[in-house]
């Protein structure tokens, strides 16, 4: 059973490497955000599978937190692209609140 976990870990590592290449060469910034989001999903799976591989399923708590923070981070980056700020829109007079 450890062999299957090892194969899955290697596959996830290869996939994360491909996504990192896309995040590095991505022409637009949205490519980079997309690649970073994918890297986050792959990291959640990597942590979960590594917990099983090592016989310590407590790692799943870390994976749970990482999944939540990944989503918040993506939304925060996109909001920053759109509005130029993360907080009060009234500080910027030209920022439309829609």
């Amino acid at each position, binding site marked *: 059973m450890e062999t299957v976990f090892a*194969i*899955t870990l290697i596959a996830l590592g290869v996939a994360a490497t491909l996504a990192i290449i896309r995040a590095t060469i991505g022409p*637009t910034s949205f490519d980079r955000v997309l690649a970073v989001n994918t890297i986050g*999903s792959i990291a959640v799976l990597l942590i979960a599978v590594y917990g099983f591989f090592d016989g310590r399923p407590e790692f*799943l708590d870390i994976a*749970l937190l990482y*999944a939540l923070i*990944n989503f918040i981070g993506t939304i925060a980056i*996109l909001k920053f692209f759109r509005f130029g700020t993360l907080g009060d829109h009234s500080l910027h007079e030209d920022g439309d609140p829609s």
Partner: protein
Amino acid sequence: MSVSAIMDIIGMVSLCIGSLAVIFGALGLLRLGDVYQRMHGTGIVDTGGAGLILFGLLMLSPDWTVTVRLILIGFILVMTGPTATHTIARAVRVSGEEPDNVKAKRKKAAPKNKAVKKAAKGGRK
């Protein structure tokens, strides 16, 4: 053959298929030509890869607390993954980026009404 042995086999098979799906999704993310097309690769990683790998771990889980955590992780990934991808797609659309085939169609249609385009260009200047 006992039930746990069958569940072990199902779990290992879905782990292998899930890792294949993750690799194909990442390949799509790397190889496709356009932001809109690359989102298909992300979709494969978020649905096929994550779903199959988490299902495989669910089949191999030794304890019920582990099962609950795995179901929670799956629920969170199912809720947040499509939302994040949809937000990225909307941000790309709002920013004015066009898909490659629309760009090619516009380039092909451009010589027919050259005068109109030239006038528009001049007007913009």
